[in-house]
Each structure stands twice: as C-alpha cells, then as structure tokens.
C-alpha cells in the first residue's frame, strides 16, 4: 500500500488497541518499528506479531517525563540509526465530571496526554535524533473541539495537542519535519464488545452511517501521513468522523 521500507518508526502507546494495529500495519509496509509502552510483556507479544525483522521494544512510562531525553537517545543507540517517524498513541481517556476534576487529576491527564507528547516531540525533533523529512503523527479526538459531559480533562488535553501541532508544524518545517494529527470520533476496536461501551459512545457509533472507524482504517491513515505520498503536508488535524450529523 504505502512504501515505508526500512523507515525506523517509534510508536508510543504500542500496547494500546490503536497502537498495536498501527505497529502491525506499518510492519507490513516494510517499516522498522520501535515499540514503546508501559507494559514490557505486552510489547514483547506484539513484537512477535510484527512482519519482517529489525524491530525493537523500548518500554517507558511517559509519566517519568524527566527521563524522556535519555529514553529518546537510547532509541537511536538501539541500532545507531536516526528515527524517521513518530506515532503518538499514548493517552488516557477518563470520564470525570467537573465536580471531580480536581487539579491533581487534571494535571495527571495533561501529563500523560499532552506534556509528555510535547516533550517527546521536542526530543525527537533534534537533528541528531531524527532524519530529514521525518514525520510525526499523533492521535487526537473529536473531543478536542466537541467533548461530551465528563470529558473535560480529556478534551482539554486533546485541544492542547491539536493547537500545539499547528505551531510546531510552522517551526519544524524549517527542518523539513512534518507533524499532523488525526481527530477520531468514536473508535470501535475489533476486540471490544459493542455492548459494554458507555451509552453515549454507543449512540455516537450508531450515528456513524459508515460504520465505526476501525483500527485498520486509522492505521492506513497514519501510514499515509508517514509516507512520501503525503509530501510535506503538515500542521493538519484531520477529522475522521465517519458519522454524519
């Protein structure tokens, strides 16, 4: 589909529903993956399911944000190759009303969903770390501009991510690095049973005339944004809503 032969790509949040499928899809297109997440065991399992060779795992807890710089350097040291791509799928999506969104809680969500994203991009975009024409793709959400009740901290973190991408795109274009996000509406991973989803999300999915977005669809879009096919398209937050309201 898209040619990503020998491109070294770091996937943050590779053990999540979306990250895992993205890693598998990219490996099928020839990429060399570095899988990162909190759970080393889970990462090893995913490693076994990848196509091709030359992949690595690099467990890391994004909450240890001060260790990010060393973490990113260690990724280059794995095989002495600079990185070509970064896919940021790390994130938590808690449901908590305003009443319970105290500062500590909000801080923690911002730390994982936004602060660590910025720190990782900041370290990644160092010329000693990434190649020219590098590409960064992050997963945002429709919640960034239209969150539901209970999604306060999640929406705020995604809005921060999207607005920062517009600025970073302008700054990074000098280094020929492109950065985009994909704003998903409700995603239905293959492994999740529709019936156990919260009602509001079930409703969103039912309104999606095209059917829910699957991990595979998102993976294709990520691959497109990583590949030469997308040229130097940058600073975009691509809506992928599927449902038609």
């Amino acid at each position, binding site marked *: *589909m*898209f*040619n990503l032969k020998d491109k070294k790509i770091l996937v943050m949040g590779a053990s999540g529903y979306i990250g895992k499928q993205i890693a598998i899809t990219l490996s099928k297109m020839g990429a060399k993956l570095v899988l990162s997440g909190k759970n080393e065991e889970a990462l090893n399992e995913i490693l076994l399911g990848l196509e091709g060779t030359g992949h690595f795992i690099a467990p890391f807890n994004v909450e240890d944000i001060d260790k990010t710089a060393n973490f990113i350097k260690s990724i280059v040291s794995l095989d002495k190759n600079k990185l070509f791509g970064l896919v940021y799928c790390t994130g938590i999506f808690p449901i908590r009303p305003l009443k319970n969104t105290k500062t500590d809680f909000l801080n923690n969500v911002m730390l994982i969903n936004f602060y660590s994203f910025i720190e990782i991009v900041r370290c990644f975009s160092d010329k000693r770390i990434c190649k020219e024409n590098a590409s960064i793709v992050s997963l945002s959400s429709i919640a960034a501009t239209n969150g539901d009740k209970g999604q306060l901290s999640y929406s705020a973190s995604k809005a921060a991510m999207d607005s920062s991408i517009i600025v970073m795109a302008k700054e990074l274009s000098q280094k020929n690095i492109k950065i985009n996000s994909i704003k998903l509406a409700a995603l239905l991973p293959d492994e999740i049973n529709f019936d156990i989803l919260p009602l509001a999300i079930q409703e969103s999915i039912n309104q999606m*005339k*095209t059917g829910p*977005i*699957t991990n595979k*669809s998102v993976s*294709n*879009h990520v691959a*497109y944004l990583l590949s*030469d*096919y*997308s*040229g*130097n*398209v*940058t*600073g*975009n937050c*691509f*809506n*992928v*809503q*599927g449902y*038609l*309201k």
Partner: protein
Amino acid sequence: MIAFQNKKILIVTTNNLDIEKDIAIALSNLGATIVFVSSNEEIGIKALSSLKGNNHKYFNLNNSQNIDELADNIISYDKKGIDAYIHCAKKETPSLLCTENNELQSIFNVNIVSYLNFIKYFSKSKKKSSNISILYLFSDSNKINAAEMSKTLSLELFEENIKINSLQLGEATTSDLKEDSNKITQNVIGMVSYLISENASFIVGEVYKLK
C-alpha cells in the same frame, strides 16, 4: 502504492488545466482511465495526449444540452460507471458584491449546480460502480463553492455507497520558488489520489484544507 487499475475517473473543470492535468497524469500512471470534461476543447484534448495509456476520453462541457445528456455520454461511451469524480470549482469571485448578476449565475452554475446535477445523475444511473468516491476541489478564490455540502450529500447518498469529501487547496503565491511549487503539486496529487482511493473509504463528508 495506491492502485487505480481499471478505475474510471471523471475530472470536471473549466478552461485551463493546471493542477487537474498533473492529477490526471498521476492517476493515469497508477492505471486509471481518465474522462476529462472542460470548456476548452483544444487544451483538453492536448492534456489527454500526455496521459499514460489510451482509453482516456474528452468531452466538451458546452457540447451537450444539459448535464444529464453529458453525464449519459460519459457513462455510455464505454458502458462503464465512474468510480471517482473530481469536480474542480474553478470559477473565481474577486468580490462577491461587485459581481454582476449574470456572472453570479454562471459561477453558481459551474461551481455548484452542475456538480449537484452530475451527482444526481450518477447516483440514479443503472450503470453504477459499487463505490463512488467524489472529491470537490476548490481554493480561497472560489468563494462561491459547495465545500460544506459534502457532509449533507454524503448523508443523502451513503446508502448508494457514494461518499463525498472536499479539499481546499492553498494558494500558490508569486514568491514561491519553483521547487516549492513542485512540492505543493506533489502534496495535492498525493492527497487527491489518497482521498479517492479505497484506502480512504472511511473518510466521509470531510472538508480538508491543504496549506
């Protein structure tokens, strides 16, 4: 690589063929059969000759009585439905308030009404491909446009497996270097071919903007 083998792609535009020609060349290189519709026959036929392969066809926008007749010709010349339709809303409006009525009507017709009529015809045609992907191309200077209709249209047509998206192209400025304008063209070609391909079947009713 995205493949368009055996896919029939309709490109509707007005006089000159700038980006449309580049898009057509790229798509024909990927195996597509191109049907060009424009109002300048000389330029149109010349563009056809630069395409790879020889099944491509040109129709003059002005030769038919109405869109239905033209659309019918487009389907019946090879008895195949179209798989993708790219409508280039090329009519510009430097100033909305200083445009004469006649001109306003013409702009609406070229940028919006003819587009809707083509879609109506293809959605009702008996020779229909299983999936039709429609892309509406426009830029800043095409202030009268149907970009925001892509969601509504997709909603009306999703049962027919017809999906519609809009793509706003950035304006190339005169200060752009030649190599920059090449990159811009590549960006457009990449995005257009991606959006009308099966890879992007889940992208429906969106309005994207290329900077």
